[in-house]
């Protein structure tokens, strides 16, 4: 099917092409075609502390899952099947972030100051500071530091739904590749390799430096010109994105 034929084909024809023939371009057309549905559903959840863009991205994951799980034997329209999947994905996202919403402001502020302080201490000490050393800088307890670190993790969910945070990072939708014919996730669960190629260049390079060259986060931060905490976040998010692709 050429691009024009794909764009005019019915949902059912596209689903058949994707599920029976492994035609990834049919899946892409379906995703693109039903993104307005995702946007419409996402708008219902706007104003709850998340940007609409982020909610739409989460909803898009639900759409993709619906397309992937759709059974051709069903006599139901894709929109009907996808709607609860999209809504469910968005609700799950908010539920999982529930803890974050209740983080006290003092911890948020402490977390905001922590990155530069860790950088400064790392430079001064020639190594990564301990929690006690970080606490000493803020004249607070180590428990507060641990909680503030977690507050940062909670506010920046390291998942596919996190969305792009910079010009060099791809939208998660762009990182979702097609599934190879005959691919069995179970056999390759421990191998993230197939998804590596889909990452943005910078994230792929950071993973290579960390896991192939064995550089520390601090060394990577110096080379790339970002903070150690940002390196940590990018590594986690990259690994999570890759796993989501394989899932």
């Amino acid at each position, binding site marked *: 099917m050429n691009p024009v034929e794909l764009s005019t084909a019915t949902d059912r024809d596209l689903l058949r092409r994707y599920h029976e023939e492994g035609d990834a371009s049919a899946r892409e057309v379906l995703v693109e075609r039903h993104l307005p549905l995702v946007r419409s559903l996402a708008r219902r959840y706007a104003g709850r502390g998340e940007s609409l863009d982020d909610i739409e991205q989460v909803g898009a994951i639900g759409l993709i899952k619906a397309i992937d799980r759709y059974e051709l034997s069903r006599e139901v329209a894709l929109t009907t099947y996808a709607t609860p999947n999209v809504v469910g994905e968005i609700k799950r996202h908010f539920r999982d972030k529930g803890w974050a919403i209740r983080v006290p402001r003092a911890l948020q502020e402490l977390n905001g100051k922590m990155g530069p302080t860790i950088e400064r201490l790392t430079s001064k000490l020639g190594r990564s500071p301990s929690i006690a050393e970080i606490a000493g800088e803020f004249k607070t307890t180590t428990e507060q*530091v641990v909680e503030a670190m977690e507050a940062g993790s909670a506010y920046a969910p390291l998942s596919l739904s996190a969305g792009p945070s910079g010009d060099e990072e791809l939208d998660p939708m762009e990182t979702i590749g097609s599934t190879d014919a005959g691919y069995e996730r179970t056999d390759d*669960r421990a191998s993230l390799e197939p998804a590596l190629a889909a990452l943005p260049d910078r994230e792929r390079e950071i993973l290579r430096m960390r896991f192939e060259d064995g550089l520390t986060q601090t060394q990577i931060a110096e080379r790339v010109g970002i903070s150690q905490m940002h390196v940590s976040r990018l590594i986690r998010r990259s*690994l*999570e994105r890759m796993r989501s692709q394989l899932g």
Partner: protein
Amino acid sequence: MPVADRIELTTPVGRSWEAVIRMVLGGIADRLDLGFDQLDDLQLAVERLLAEGDPHDPVTISFELSQGGVRARVGPLRDAALADALQGPEPPPGELTLPRILSTVVDSYGVEEVADGHLVVRLEKLVRAQ
């Protein structure tokens, strides 16, 4: 590594519970005076195991603390493919696999118990001289 203290945490698995595990690890890192990067490594190791191990039931994570470091045991993980991957040969250079991630972020790891399809993965992180 002589064991001084032991902490055991049984928790449901899922993103909303990861914070609980990270907080416990943060407390342990404080007691052991681990560097921020070492804490991050340990958190990443546990997170990846739980993510790739795909447990369906609550998981128990036990920590044995000594002056030399921390030994964690994570399980049960019911995943034969994971056991094979962790017990198999070293992955070729350039391949990003769970074994490569673990060998980068912890000092040693191993599959400690495999019975009835259940496995427990052991992770060891040594205290680096400050």
